[in-house]
């Protein structure tokens, strides 16, 4: 009859090792005694109870005057390990700084990128029905290219509601977000807002601060976001008060909702007005609905699926809905589909054959960069710790001679590297918290640190453990296998190939860094290339003012006259779109010699006689509009792209000819150089500019270059205030608007350059540490060489040669790699820069210079040492 097995094991494992043997024996004897006196069951109970009482820390340790026995994880040994670890760290402050600092920097970069990616993936998750909401979108295919659009025809909404009602919970019609004037008495602001169907607040699951989500049911109502309510009404409760919209309508506030957070698609939805009001006040919308204009694609349609419906199935069901109602567009193969909310942010971009070409690629890019930077930092850390650990061979020898077991040494080295990694982790968290505000500005984000996210901590700690164990495993396993006799006698040597893994790691590091450098240069070149592109007009001193109040319509001559009179403006005109954007594409033009099968599609812009002089377009043939020709009131100017598109080569072939559109016959008076209105990365589209005073959305003003901008703007503002007292004077500089077209690319470039710089810095830190290590190792060799007559340059070359070789190998690997990836990236742009050979040359040279600078400090310092001193060491 034996006592419980587990209790006996517990006792053997955790009792005070000094008395473990006799206690185990004694308890066994007591157990037999108990079995005889009180029975098996109680004996077992007694036994277990006594085992627990005898376990440390419940039982006292025996403080014997004899030598205590050793055992794993004894407090004295752990204290000793810590002491040795700390002494090692403080003894080599430089190394420790490079080691911990480099790893912390790498971790911080990885964390920032991780936070960024997390934010990208949590986009729009604020909406409770995240997984059931979709945009209704369509594709058309023309000339083999597929175009994606979210501009939808108005009758589609009712069609979906009536025929597919079972699949949808809500269908929300929406005008696109536009700038409107909201006013409360004298307080007037321009804010972005949208007209939407009354279910919109439910679909967005808006958090109501006052009022209810059914606020849009009344026709003359408006719902405000918290921030707009605050600027208009201060702290008073706005519900029931009146807001004047666009200086034309008085609307009752029926609700205030919490601002949509920064990482949502509709973050600038600062107010919502009812869709029915929009229909009632805008005749073109009303006619589009009444006449079922399936060809007029001007609105957004959002949908929330019913709980049972499946996104893909419903999407398939409605695929040919537009074709059915608009059979004349069959040649464009229009297809309607649902674009789910979870894909809005990262998967809203398609190339011409319908493959995803969207933000998700940047997420991948940064994910890869982050992984690499972290990898670089870890490699550094491993390199330095292994290089340093060889210096501790003697310590290992002595520990072994005194009686350390191999397991204990392994434990010591592993816990040491874990300690250092833990320090770096804490430091990196501090760094991230410090850098987050600056990073948010750089990345245009509002990211908070994920203090409470268990996944974040899990990932962080898992990474620490992995890095600590991997980087500690070399010294732990390798050094602990030394024979103490050899180490202590000094006959021990590491062998020729001990440094090979380290060299491989350095090559890997520099390959990544050089690839990042080349990538950054090419991204900047691409941006610069697009910026330097000829734009075909003069945007200096050009401002645009949106026409969004009734007073500004039909006052063209009054406005122009008084603006020119002030002397602040040299020219003024109106147009249907600002010169920095294009929002209208139309087909259906007819001209002499047109192929009847040619499905034409042009950018169409309505302008006035003075438009050309305002923007300063440049003619390649013909003349500008002029009031001295009465026929110019139906005049047209086209760009070179349009000329080519129609199949002509010389401007003279078109000038004086007629083009018919919507029943009006236009006379072509001139051909201009291509004016860049759309994306600077794409070719200029064929565009037609037609004189039309009624089709005006924007006022373009050319400021007087002789006057300061501030002064002219003040004067212009006073003119506007006189003519349209109800609206604030909001203007935009054309060059600033143009610059925003680069914002995505520039942001990516800035982020990439910051990360590349960090990667290079981390690599250099590692190199610096390794160089100083080799210099130190070869102190004696250098001393002897000096005695034999080597000069400082000799020695410098000797020490730098190895590293330069490694960097050249890295360049050889990274150049084809970088070329391959960046060539693919550039192919996604129609208007792109060339990858020229000098970029690679400059990167290689740069890497070599950086390497030499890093290594030289150590090399020269070692070469300058007095040989007498270096040979005297030991």
């Amino acid at each position: 009859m034996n006592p419980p097995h587990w209790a006996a094991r517990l006792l053997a494992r955790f009792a005070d090792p000094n008395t473990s043997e006799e206690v185990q024996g004694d308890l066994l004897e007591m157990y037999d005694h108990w079995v005889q006196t009180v029975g098996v069951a109680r004996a077992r109970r007694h036994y277990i109870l006594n085992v627990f009482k005898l376990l440390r820390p419940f039982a006292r340790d025996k403080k014997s005057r004899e030598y205590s026995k050793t055992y794993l994880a004894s407090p004295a040994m752990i204290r000793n390990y810590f002491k040795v670890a700390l002494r090692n760290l403080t003894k080599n402050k430089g190394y420790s700084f490079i080691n911990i600092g480099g790893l912390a920097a790498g971790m911080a970069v990885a964390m920032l990128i991780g936070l960024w990616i997390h934010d990208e993936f949590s986009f729009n998750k604020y909406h409770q029905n995240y997984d059931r909401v979709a945009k209704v979108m369509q594709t058309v295919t023309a000339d083999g290219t597929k175009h994606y659009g979210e501009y939808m025809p108005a009758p589609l909404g009712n069609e979906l509601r009536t025929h597919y009602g079972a699949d949808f919970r809500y269908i929300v019609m929406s005008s696109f977000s536009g700038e409107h004037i909201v006013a409360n008495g004298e307080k007037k602001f321009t804010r972005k807002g949208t007209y939407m169907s009354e279910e919109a607040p439910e679909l967005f699951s808006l958090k109501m601060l006052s009022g209810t989500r059914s606020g849009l049911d009344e026709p003359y109502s408006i719902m405000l976001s918290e921030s707009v309510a605050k600027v208009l009404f201060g702290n008073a409760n706005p519900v029931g008060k009146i807001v004047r919209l666009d200086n034309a309508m008085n609307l009752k506030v029926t609700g205030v909702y919490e601002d949509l957070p920064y990482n949502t698609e509709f973050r600038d939805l600062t107010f919502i007005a009812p869709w029915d009001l929009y229909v009632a006040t805008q005749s073109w919308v009303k006619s589009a609905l009444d006449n079922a204009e399936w060809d007029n694609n001007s609105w957004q349609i959002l949908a929330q699926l019913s709980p049972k419906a499946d996104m893909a199935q419903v999407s398939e069901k409605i695929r040919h809905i537009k074709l059915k109602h608009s059979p004349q567009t069959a040649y464009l193969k229009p297809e309607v589909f649902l674009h789910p909310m979870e894909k809005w942010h990262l998967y809203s971009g398609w190339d011409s054959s319908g493959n995803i070409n969207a933000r998700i690629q940047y997420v991948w890019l940064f994910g890869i960069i982050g992984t690499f930077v972290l990898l670089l930092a870890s490699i550094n850390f491993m390199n330095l710790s292994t290089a340093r650990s060889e210096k501790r061979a003697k310590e290992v020898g002595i520990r072994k001679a005194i009686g350390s077991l191999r397991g204990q040494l392994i434990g010591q080295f592993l816990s040491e590297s874990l300690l250092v990694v833990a320090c770096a982790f804490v430091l990196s968290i501090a760094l991230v918290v410090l850098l987050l505000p600056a990073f948010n500005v750089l990345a245009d984000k509002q990211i908070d640190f994920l203090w409470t996210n268990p996944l974040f901590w899990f990932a962080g700690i898992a990474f620490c453990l992995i890095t600590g164990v991997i980087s500690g495993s070399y010294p732990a396993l390798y050094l602990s296998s030394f024979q103490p006799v050899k180490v202590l006698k000094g006959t021990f040597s590491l062998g020729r190939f001990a440094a090979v893994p380290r060299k491989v790691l350095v090559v890997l590091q520099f390959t990544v860094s050089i690839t990042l450098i080349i990538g950054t240069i090419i991204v900047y070149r691409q941006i610069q290339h697009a910026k330097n592109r000829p734009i075909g007009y003069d945007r200096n001193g050009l401002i645009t003012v949106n026409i969004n109040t009734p007073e500004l319509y039909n006052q063209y001559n009054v406005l122009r006259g008084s603006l020119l009179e002030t002397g602040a403006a040299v020219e003024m005109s109106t147009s249907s779109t600002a010169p920095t954007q294009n929002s209208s594409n139309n087909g259906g033009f007819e001209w002499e010699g047109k192929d009847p099968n040619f499905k034409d599609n042009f950018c169409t812009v309505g302008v006035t006689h003075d438009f050309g002089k305002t923007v300063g377009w440049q003619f390649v043939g013909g003349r500008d509009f002029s009031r001295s020709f009465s026929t110019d009131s139906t005049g047209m100017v086209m760009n070179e792209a349009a000329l080519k598109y129609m199949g002509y080569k010389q401007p003279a072939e078109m000038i004086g000819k007629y083009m018919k559109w919507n029943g009006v016959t236009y006379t072509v008076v001139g051909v201009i150089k291509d004016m860049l209105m759309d994306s600077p990365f794409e070719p200029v589209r064929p565009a037609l500019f037609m004189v039309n005073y009624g089709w005006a959305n924007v006022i373009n003003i050319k400021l007087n270059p002789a006057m300061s901008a501030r002064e002219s703007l003040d004067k212009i503002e006073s003119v506007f205030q006189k003519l349209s007292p109800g609206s604030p004077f909001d203007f935009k500089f054309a060059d600033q608007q143009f610059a925003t077209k680069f914002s995505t690319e520039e942001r990516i470039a800035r982020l990439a350059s910051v990360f590349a710089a960090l990667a290079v810095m981390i690599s250099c830190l590692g190199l610096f540490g390794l160089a100083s290590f080799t210099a130190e190792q070869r102190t004696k060799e250098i001393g002897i060489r000096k005695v034999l007559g080597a000069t400082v340059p000799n020695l410098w070359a000797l020490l730098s040669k190895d590293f330069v070789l490694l960097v050249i190998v890295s360049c050889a690997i990274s150049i084809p790699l970088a070329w391959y990836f960046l060539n693919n990236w550039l192919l996604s742009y129609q208007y792109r820069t060339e990858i020229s050979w000098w970029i690679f040359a400059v990167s290689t040279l740069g890497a070599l210079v950086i390497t030499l600078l890093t290594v030289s400090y150590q090399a020269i310092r070692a070469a300058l040492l007095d040989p007498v001193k270096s040979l005297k060491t030991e």
Partner: protein
Amino acid sequence: MKRVFLGEFEEVVLLTVAILGENAYAVTVTQELERKTGRLVGFSSVHTTLQRMEQKGYLTSVMGGATAERGGRRKRFFVVTALGQKVLLEVKQVRDDLWNALPQSGFQLSKG
């Protein structure tokens, strides 16, 4: 001279070790105590008490030879040191003094 303090349990354990002579180790001490006092004595408390008194120097211990019993594990035998004997005697002296000082009537009062 400062008197040493000996707890009641310690005193009993020390005495038992002295009684058992050469065969005094934790198990025999526990069993002897159970027999003599008739109460259940915890093995772990005997063990710790023995350890503590060895630390104080009242006891000294020596490991016995390995035998076939108890899985071949050795026993730790305890012997009372000279200091231990002196302490025991002192405690006895104090007690005797106290008994002698006890007036006959007082004892009877407390008994009644």
